[in-house]
């Protein structure tokens, strides 16, 4: 029995940060010494290779691995700067026509032999893409933002994960804006955990640097960036590995003029 942890990164709602989290978390875990592979399970609209800046190094994908046209090692793309991290690129969209849960399970079984962590970047929605990915995962991390629609979708997804026996399921609250929360213009952390009733694995503040890093294909956690989002992803990686790190407190985030100036410089969010 392998002690590999196979974690599904899912959300239900699109655009809340699954791929960004998978990329940053993958890098963070790799930097902390864990051999990590990230698997793009979104065969229709694949993005994980873009966020990692590896799209021009893809030769083989999951499809060729399944068809046994190539060996797994040939398909895996190693990250140049972070050798502990590898990417298994998504197959082509035609695969959606015939891919079954057992195919995803076969891919993951191959990966589990060589890695400590397998992070599966799940497509948005709850249709076949999600079902196939969930069938291959053991644990899950649900990403949501403090917005009613995202929380509603996350609730649905958690219900489905419970039915499939994926556990433990943990929660990451993404794109938190402390100012809006304190003005009660945004759902509070308690509002979210009240409905979803899941342990909070991490809290990531809204950070414009994420957009910049995404476009460049350089995840924030790759550099020694002191941006709050990078720190949050680093913390999440450590918590996944069992360390007890206190969550960032949105209400504390705005105290002190100096802290505010620092925040302004880093995130450029007013």
């Amino acid at each position, binding site marked *: 029995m392998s002690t590999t942890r196979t974690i599904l990164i899912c959300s239900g709602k699109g655009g809340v940060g699954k791929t960004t989290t998978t990329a940053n978390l993958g890098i963070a875990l790799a930097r902390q010494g864990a051999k990590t592979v990230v698997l793009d399970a979104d065969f229709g609209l694949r993005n994980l290779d873009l966020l990692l800046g590896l799209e021009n190094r893809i030769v083989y994908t999951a499809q060729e691995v399944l068809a046994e046209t190539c060996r797994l090692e040939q398909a895996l793309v190693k990250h140049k700067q972070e050798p502990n991290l590898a990417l298994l690129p998504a197959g082509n969209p035609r695969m959606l026509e015939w891919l079954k849960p057992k195919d995803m399970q076969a891919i993951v079984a191959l990966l589990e032999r060589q890695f400590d962590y397998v992070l599966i970047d799940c497509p948005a929605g709850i249709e076949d893409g999600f079902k196939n990915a969930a069938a291959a995962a053991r644990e899950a991390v649900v990403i949501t933002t403090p917005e009613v629609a995202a929380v*509603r*979708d996350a609730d*649905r997804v*958690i*219900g489905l994960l*419970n*039915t499939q026996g994926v556990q433990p399921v943990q929660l990451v609250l993404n794109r938190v804006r402390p100012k809006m929360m304190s003005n009660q213009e945004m759902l509070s952390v308690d509002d979210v955990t009240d*409905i979803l009733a899941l342990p909070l694995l991490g809290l990531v503040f809204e950070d414009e640097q994420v957009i910049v890093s995404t476009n460049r294909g350089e995840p924030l956690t790759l550099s020694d960036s002191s941006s709050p989002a990078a720190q949050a992803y680093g913390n999440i990686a450590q918590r996944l590995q069992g360390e007890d790190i206190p969550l960032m407190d949105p209400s504390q985030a705005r105290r002190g003029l100096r802290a505010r100036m620092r925040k302004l410089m880093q995130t450029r969010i007013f």
Partner: protein
Amino acid sequence: MTLRLPDQRLDHWRDRLPDLLSRCSQPIVDLDCGDWVLTCSDLADLCAAVSEAGHQLGRITGQAAKTVVSASALGLDASRSNTPSSRELQPNPVAKAPSELLFHHGTLRSGDHLQSERTILLYGDVNPGARISSAADVLVWGRLRGVAHAGCEGSTTAKIVALQLRPLQLRIADVVARGPEDLPQAGLAEQAELKDGVIAIEPAVIQSFQKR
């Protein structure tokens, strides 16, 4: 050898299962689910119980589409039976008054729909996006934030009660109302019933829970 789940109006299959299994003599047991609606986890529990008793599960038939879907999802051989199967009398029929209450422990998440002909007592929350329906009363020992439908087969005396009644929508018989917008008073259990054809919400009245 067919294992028939008991009539929903008489017994819960979980209660009768050990008894039914002890009467199975053949190694392969087919399962007739009747009109029970079984989820994947229900069927998984059933399978486990059957194998623990030393039998193997053969074909599964049921009237409820969801049961057949759940069974197929688990990879079991399942098919829909269209007509209510003629039920042989169980040896030793137990003459019991039909149970009036369905007790469910757990929170209903968005997309879930718990329905029954009996009064439902839910120990947990009904999240926004979840639904709970009963032909009789709906009692939520928790927060009702989804959609609740009491008296869904036409009973206008049905009630909806919750520790925190803040549903998206309330329905009693065929009357529909939006849930209240304001926050509830902390600790106040409320009930909703039809008064002059309109759904009215008031603090839960203790006397109304006595058997009618």
